[in-house]
């Protein structure tokens, strides 16, 4: 089954809903959970980049670690990097031999959903990851994330 799960986050409230699902999935599968947060291209010097990454790691830890500890889950890794998010996640998925990647369709702004909606309204990151991930991608649709779906 899925022993290594990768969850990509942009630290929004919407991501927290996806995280709750991922955490329960990881717990029920006895899987190791990777939490990835990408900073994008920073165009800074090495020291400033390292400082930004450290600050972001603390932010991610503050957002998710208490929740994991409260539910008795300890098998996790936090990974923060600069650079383009999609190639960095694909690289991580390949290097860590991830079995499953979990993400929302778009976690920045509410998305319009309807059966007649244009097909290309999935988020850009989600679409690119689905196309380039070396493993299956579990997409949590907007309907399951409170406030994300508009009609």
């Amino acid at each position: 089954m899925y022993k290594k799960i990768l969850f990509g986050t942009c630290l929004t409230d919407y991501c927290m809903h996806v995280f709750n699902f991922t955490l329960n999935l990881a717990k029920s599968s006895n899987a190791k959970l990777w939490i990835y947060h990408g900073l994008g291209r920073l165009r800074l010097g090495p020291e400033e980049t390292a400082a930004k990454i450290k600050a972001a790691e603390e932010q991610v830890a503050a957002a998710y670690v208490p929740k994991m500890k409260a539910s008795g889950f300890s098998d996790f890794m936090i990974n923060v990097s600069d650079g383009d998010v999609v190639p960095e996640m694909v690289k991580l998925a390949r290097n860590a031999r991830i079995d499953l990647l979990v993400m929302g369709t778009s976690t920045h702004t509410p998305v319009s959903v309807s059966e007649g909606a244009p097909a290309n309204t999935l988020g850009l990151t989600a679409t690119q990851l689905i196309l380039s991930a070396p493993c299956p991608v579990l997409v949590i649709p907007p309907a399951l994330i409170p406030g994300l779906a508009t009609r």
Partner: protein
Amino acid sequence: MFQFSGKLKRLLWPNDLSKCSESVLPFVISVAKKYDAEVHVLYVAEDLTQHEPWYGDFDPGHARHIMEWEKKKAQERLQQLCRKYLADCAAYAKHVVVGNPAREILKFINDHDIDIVVMCRKGAGGDFKMGSVAQRVALNAPVPVMLGPGDSDMSWR
């Protein structure tokens, strides 16, 4: 708040009989076995009578005849697939319906209380990397959708 209950009772595998659809079979089987889930295999035949007659009027009887043939062949192929690959699963059912693929898949999810959808990111139609049916289902489904990488090389796993 939306939570994963730890149980998946019914899994939907939309299958257009393409190579890509078949490539997600390992994920279908692993999820079905892990959660003891029923596997519902769905083939949606496009409704030919609903197409605009761009190239002139056509005989609806003839279109229906082609669709009946397609449904019969799809049933046979799904039967082969299920017998060959899903025999070890808790239970499986195959379904063939006619209509718009994305719409029928979404309707099926609601009608059959599906808990998870496992499908390929692209189908048989067109030469696109990301299929429009997969995108519409991922965007509109009321349940998580697992999209397989299709032709990606997973031999390293």
